[in-house]
């Protein structure tokens, strides 16, 4: 997933490439590869371990502004005009409804459908294990399974498409 933020008038780019089950992430930040570990103990708060240093960030979003509190400072991030709704653009792709993707890093436990199968809204498609918990990922549309990109046992990162559907229109 690619992000652009404006901080103090400058654009900062971040690509989150992959994440693993135990919270390790690979990313490219400002052209540099970075590896970090992330965890969260409560909504709005997450802890990063980056270059060996522990950082706890508290985050809130309002009207397209993102506020991040770290070490006594509040950093305000905006989304650049040209790529406004970077969050939502990702979301459209993510939530395009005909592309079923991993909402979080995890291991695919089971694919519950086959190519060519007709699916209905709320029908479970995938079982994904993340942090020792199994979660069903469900369809939100009426459709037909067009492609399955991973197998059981595969690790997937956040945002990676696992299944593609063709929408059935009335």
């Amino acid at each position, binding site marked *: 997933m690619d992000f652009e933020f404006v901080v103090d008038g400058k654009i900062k780019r971040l690509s989150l490439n992959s994440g693993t089950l135990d*919270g390790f992430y690979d990313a490219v930040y400002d052209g540099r590869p*970075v590896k970090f570990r992330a965890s969260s103990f409560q909504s709005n708060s997450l802890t990063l371990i980056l270059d060996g240093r522990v950082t706890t960030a508290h985050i809130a979003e309002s009207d397209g502004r*993102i506020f991040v*509190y*770290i070490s*006594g400072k509040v950093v305000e991030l905006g989304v650049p005009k040209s790529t406004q709704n970077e*969050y*939502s653009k990702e*979301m459209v792709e993510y939530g395009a409804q005909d592309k079923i993707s991993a909402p979080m890093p995890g291991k695919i436990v089971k694919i519950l459908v086959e190519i060519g199968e007709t699916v209905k809204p709320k029908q479970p498609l995938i079982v994904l294990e*993340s942090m020792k918990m199994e979660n069903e990922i469900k369809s939100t549309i009426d459709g037909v399974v067009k492609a399955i990109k991973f197998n059981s046992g595969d690790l997937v990162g956040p945002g990676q498409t696992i299944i593609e559907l063709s929408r059935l229109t009335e």
Partner: protein
Amino acid sequence: MSSMFNKILIANRGEIAIRIMRACRELGIETVAVYSSIDKNALHLRFADEAVYIGESEPQKSYLNIDNIIAAAHQTGAQAIHPGYGFLSENSLFAERCLQENIAFIGPNPEALRLVGDKIVSREIVAQYNIPVIPGMENKTTSIDECIAFAEKYGYPLILKTSAGGGGKGMRIIRSKAEAKSAIEAGMREAQTTFGDPSVYLEKYLEQPRHVEIQILADNSGNAVHLYERECSIQRRHQKIIEESPSVILDSDLRRRMGETALKVAAISGYSNAGTVEFLVDSDNNFYFLEVNARLQVEHPVTELVTGIDLVHAQLRIAAGEKLWLNQENIRQNGHAIECRIYAEDPARNFLPSAGKILFMQEPGGPGIRHDCGVITGSEISVYYDPILSKLISWAPDRETCCKRIATALNDFPILGIRTNIEYLRDIITHPEFSKGNINTGFIDRYMADWQPKSESAVIDRAVIAAGLYGGLNDARKMNTAGSPEIPSPWEMLGDWRIGSRK
């Protein structure tokens, strides 16, 4: 009468209403909260046993509406009213009305309130008892000519004060004849709009004095003690933002003399209940009576932490008719306390008040940290009332440790969604001159005038990474929970991870 009240009404809101309700609970007293339209979900309601709506959001229609507050007290059977600070706390008409309605007013008797409420009269009276006062006009006025005549006769610099005033509103420093007229006009306009009374007066202006005040407690029979000093020199536009006790400049002799003077003022004015006698101290350690604050003050917690005396408990016991149970020689100062006032304002943009919703807040903690707070995550900060959110107070055996404690707490105090002065306060506390105790009322102008938050690239880098991760995961959560609510949020799943252990 010396039996404690069963039920009292708190005619206030925010952190001070909650502070008073806690004290009532401790003493087994039921509480009645009052609230305006915009405060229908305010935090203070949750700390009360009963809550009564008293009018629309404008203070005049609710928290300053004497009839509605009295009616609320009768309706609920409250035997007493605690006014908190601000609003009706120093309104002698309100105190009198309470007496007429057979409701105890938790504060000074109306006569003392009226006397000390007139800043000019009280200065002239205490001056007759050889208490040093700051020289100034002997009457308030609405005449610019009268002010200028006094200024020309007395000389500059002078400070213009409003007769009705408080909180630094309308105050102007006048250094020459050239700026006198426009400053007086502006002060009168501000007094008119803020207090509905344009009356002003002029006083000699001391250059960068310290502001030191003495807390007193007096019972209804004239027995009184003082609870030592609070140093309140860190002020922005004449409003205190950091207070501490003890003051680094008071030696035992000066402390004793100021304490005795404060008790003399209490005796002269026939004062009862809790009050504060304010002084200015010049660079030669001469002190001058300034005024009496006839209420529980915002900064009362620093005194509570160093003396171990709960001032709200004391107010309630005195108001219930109890004879003073404290002896001056048994009251000691133990350790050091500092308070920082947390405001919803933006120090980077000329301290504009910041209204809105608190999207996230986490209170700091640890040994020696007290947080008197009126808000919570989800609270809406409106434009109707004072922007104070809370007070962070630290206690430690010595000043240096106390500074470190409060700086550490200020550094771990996220409030998101609105802007606050927390980082600004931390930068004052950690300023080398503050650490040395080199403070006076000129501190902010001298050291903090051009303050801006420092930009730190390492923090920005981590903030961007955190925001990306948050955005990605959160959108994923939104998308998923929309279709299948039984899928827990990724946050809950990530939550299993702990430092040093992989579950």
